[in-house]
């Protein structure tokens, strides 16, 4: 028999939890839902547009009767749970329904707080929470009549705007002299007030309400200072109060909200709670984005999946009043140990403020120009070090240039004909059209439908901007955590952590343990899992060739015509006549059509037929070559200059050092390709400052630079450290590579990785923490013992494998 799950509260958080649960474990529970409101679930956020007349109620219903029926869920609508018997595990409803449960989910939301002033219970005093409230307001909202909204926060202003659009004369009364003080600082709030006043809203602030007047219906309102205003309708919007009476009445521990753990469990382990009714690590919630994250974690545990943890959320807000651009996130007020950057342009009505701590964004307020809100928010969430572009950050992403996060143009200002994705030839207009017509919400969906950002990924930022600006108000429905791929709801980091904690040893175990949605994954997750397992269990894990991209399976580079290219390793780029002759012989013997010097100072043999690969490997091996890994997510080449042996400027033996570095690092698998260079002096002929790791020799030692990239988005390295000896260069290089191997996400190059975690973090782990560095270096050296096996020798010796490379022939 199925277990029974009862949900109390048919609102946004509760139903989202059910949705996520149905994805993970559709058949686990018999589900019943009690909802006090007499409807299916609707998008409460959009009540403001309904009030303003921009949307109808039908348009905002997200789950109709059909949805509950199709998913086998029994909905008791318009019926409220009045008692919970925790011993017998039973709930009882107002209409007399009694049900048993195995698990109970409380999602009772919150209620508008009604100030207990005289007259608060008069006819015509209304909170702003549900469709019933909206209907009552609309009944009272005849053009020409007077409305007073008490509370100048997000909801109060949206209510005031809606009523004004219905033709009423509306006054907003606020206790403080700053509107939306939970989201705005004084400067932005003043701009907002000014702009709302110009649309016809009136303000009375700061002001304290003393009484609401009238009998039995509202006629006016009186303030402490004796002033009175006429009112036919009073909307009370001073704050919300978690709806916890039910939980309290059955003895579940509550403070301001129902106390829940990181797994969203209450003090009774059979009872879970999500949404505005909960209190987690001291915080209460009033926006949907964190509730949806809670829903994801809670469903994970209801499905007995047991991996996810809720660790709180960072949220951002916008105001849904047409024509007003406002964005706020995080600790926007600043304070001790914080610095603030501001830009004020009163003539254009623009105000921007960023609050920083240690060069990381802690909060933001934007008014008038919110294009970069999503970008700042991303930098903030990822706690990225912004020192590299601090001077220009307030001017927006468009001005940052090519330091990784930058884009040359603001997507929003681009014409529809502008090409967004150079790889696939996708224009801005195509992307916008697909988002609107196909109702796309995520980057993944846009990739699938338009191909934009699906190849090299350098336009991802632009596509995200277009997505954000096209979706507009629906920002909060976009998921804030990126799943690894469509086969799982877990992120890269969660998958990685689970591999360690649950000690999965094979791809199969990992997929089974983490309840993959597909039998054997897809071409995104299999290579990622293969890498994570290999990195975590360097000695034990057996590499899964079928989960590797063809290049890594054949240890050669596939070309557009299906032939391959082969690159033998030439240590430090130094070769001799014997090696060159051997390569020439191979070129002749296999009729190699093109022989080319690569950008990494190696020799590339192009146009090789698959069935010739074993022969070429064998011949090159016999001449002393090993694979150059020019195809892998692995160490590529160590490029060197001639250095002090020959060059009149050389300060150190850059060539010899490069060879040592290459001998130490070759064969290592990394999250993405990894390039190294060593230059003999700051003239930097080996272009070390655009490599993942570059060594620049100076008279007094060696500078180690990291995080460079010479690809689509050029990024110059950051200086990690300066050391005195070659031995230290080797140690720091090994430690840096190991940190990158262990912590970067699969297919994340060092440049975006460093920008995500911050150079300061990397310095802390590699430079400041001597013990940590040594341990990382030892880890690298240990992993290399299993990695430095030449794949060519191994494969050429595997007759079974070589036979499989050859085509099958048909019997004649």
């Amino acid at each position: 028999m199925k277990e029974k799950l009862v949900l109390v509260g048919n609102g946004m958080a509760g139903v989202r939890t059910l949705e996520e649960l149905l994805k993970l474990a559709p058949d686990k529970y018999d589900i019943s839902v009690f909802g006090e409101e007499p409807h299916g679930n609707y998008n409460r956020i959009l009540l403001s547009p309904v009030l303003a007349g921009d949307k109808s109620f039908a348009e905002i219903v997200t789950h109709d009767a059909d949805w509950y029926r199709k998913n086998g869920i029994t909905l008791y609508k318009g019926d409220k749970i009045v008692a919970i018997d925790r011993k017998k595990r039973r709930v009882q409803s107002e209409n007399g329904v009694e049900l048993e449960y195995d698990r109970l989910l409380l999602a009772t939301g919150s209620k508008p707080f009604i100030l207990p002033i005289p007259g608060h219970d008069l006819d015509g005093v209304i909170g702003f929470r549900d469709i019933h409230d909206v209907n009552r307001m609309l009944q009272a909202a005849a053009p020409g009549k007077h409305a007073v909204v008490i509370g100048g926060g997000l909801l109060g202003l949206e209510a005031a705007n809606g009523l004004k659009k219905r033709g009423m004369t509306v006054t907003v009364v606020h206790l403080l002299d700053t509107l939306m003080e939970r989201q705005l600082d004084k400067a932005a709030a003043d701009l907002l007030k000014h702009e709302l006043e110009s649309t016809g809203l009136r303000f009375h602030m700061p002001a304290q309400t003393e009484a609401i007047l009238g009998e039995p219906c509202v006629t006016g309102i009186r303030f402490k200072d004796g002033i009175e205003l006429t009112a036919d309708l009073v909307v009370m919007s001073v704050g919300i109060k978690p709806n916890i009476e039910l939980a309290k009445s059955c003895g579940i521990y509550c403070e301001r909200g129902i106390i829940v753990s990181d797994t969203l469990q209450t003090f009774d382990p059979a009872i879970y709670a999500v949404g505005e009714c909960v209190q987690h690590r001291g915080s209460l919630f009033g926006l949907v984005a964190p509730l949806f994250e809670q829903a994801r974690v809670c469903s994970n545990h209801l499905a007995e999946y047991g991996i996810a943890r809720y660790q709180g959320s960072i949220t951002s807000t916008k105001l849904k009043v047409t024509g007003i651009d406002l964005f706020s996130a995080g600790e926007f007020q600043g304070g001790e140990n914080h610095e603030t950057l501001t830009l004020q342009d009163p003539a254009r009505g623009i105000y921007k403020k960023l609050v920083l701590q240690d060069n990381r964004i802690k909060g933001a307020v934007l008014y008038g120009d919110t294009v970069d809100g999503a970008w700042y928010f991303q930098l903030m969430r990822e706690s990225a070090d912004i020192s590299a572009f601090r001077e220009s950050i307030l001017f927006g992403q468009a001005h940052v240039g090519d330091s990784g996060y930058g884009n040359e143009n603001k997507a929003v200002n681009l014409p529809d004909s502008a090409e967004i994705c150079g790889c696939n030839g996708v224009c801005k207009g195509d992307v916008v059209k697909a988002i609107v017509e196909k109702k796309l919400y995520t980057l993944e969906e846009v990739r699938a439908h338009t191909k934009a950002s699906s190849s090299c990924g350098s336009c991802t930022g632009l596509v995200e901007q277009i997505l954000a600006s096209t979706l507009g108000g629906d920002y909060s429905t976009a998921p804030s955590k990126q799943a690894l791929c469509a086969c799982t709801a877990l992120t890269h980091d969660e998958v990685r952590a689970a591999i360690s904690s649950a000690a999965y040893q094979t791809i199969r175990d990992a997929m089974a343990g983490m309840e993959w949605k597909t039998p054997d994954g897809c071409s995104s997750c299999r290579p990622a899992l293969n890498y994570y397992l290999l990195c975590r269990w360097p000695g034990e894990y057996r590499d899964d060739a079928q989960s590797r991209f063809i290049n890594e399976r054949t240890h050669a580079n596939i070309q557009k015509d299906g032939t391959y290219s082969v690159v033998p390793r030439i240590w430090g780029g130094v070769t001799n006549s014997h090696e060159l002759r051997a390569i020439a012989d191979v070129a002749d013997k296999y009729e190699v059509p093109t022989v080319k010097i690569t950008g990494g100072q190696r020799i590339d043999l192009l146009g090789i037929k698959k069935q010739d690969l074993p022969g070429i490997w064998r011949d090159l091996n016999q001449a002393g070559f090993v694979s150059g890994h020019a195809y892998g997510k692995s160490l590529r080449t160590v490029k060197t200059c001639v250095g002090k042996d020959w060059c009149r400027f050389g300060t150190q033996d850059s060539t010899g050092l490069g060879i040592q570095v290459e001998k130490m690092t070759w064969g290592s698998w990394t999250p993405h390709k990894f390039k190294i260079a060593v230059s003999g002096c700051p003239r930097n002929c080996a272009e070390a400052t655009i490599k993942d790791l570059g060594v620049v020799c100076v008279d007094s030692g060696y500078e180690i630079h990291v995080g460079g990239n010479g690809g689509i988005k050029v990024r110059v390295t950051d200086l990690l450290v300066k050391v005195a000896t070659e031995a230290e260069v080797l140690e720091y290089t090994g430690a840096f590579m190991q940190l990158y191997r262990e912590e970067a996400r699969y297919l994340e190059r060092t440049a975006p990785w460093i920008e995500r975690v911050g150079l300061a973090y990397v310095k802390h782990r590699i430079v400041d923490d001597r013990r940590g560095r040594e341990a990382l270096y030892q880890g690298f050296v240990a992993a290399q013992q299993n990695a430095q096996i030449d794949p060519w020798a191994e494969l050429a010796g595997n007759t079974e494998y070589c036979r499989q490379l050859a085509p099958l022939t048909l019997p004649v």
Partner: protein
Amino acid sequence: MNNEWIYIAALDEIPRQGARVIETGHGDIAVFRTLSDQVFALRDHCPHQGGPLSQGIVHGEKVTCPLHNWVIELNSGVAVAPDEGCAQRYAVKVEHMQVFVAL
């Protein structure tokens, strides 16, 4: 067109979650074997730009083309939406662990 079953290889000679290529007078054919030992045959020519499907990653009953990541359904040869296109499919049977194709 010839409807005879033609013997290709023993099942074991096709790697699991992988493929082998058959060279024929009218182009290469890719014979795939899935994790659950289902066998499929498609023309080894991606409907996008002709990439060798036999070299892609096989997952479920699909293969991801190695050149630009189109995903092709093995049982029909049809590209997974929103991509559009189709690789010709051939009938295959496995009898006593031996694989036959009808060309």
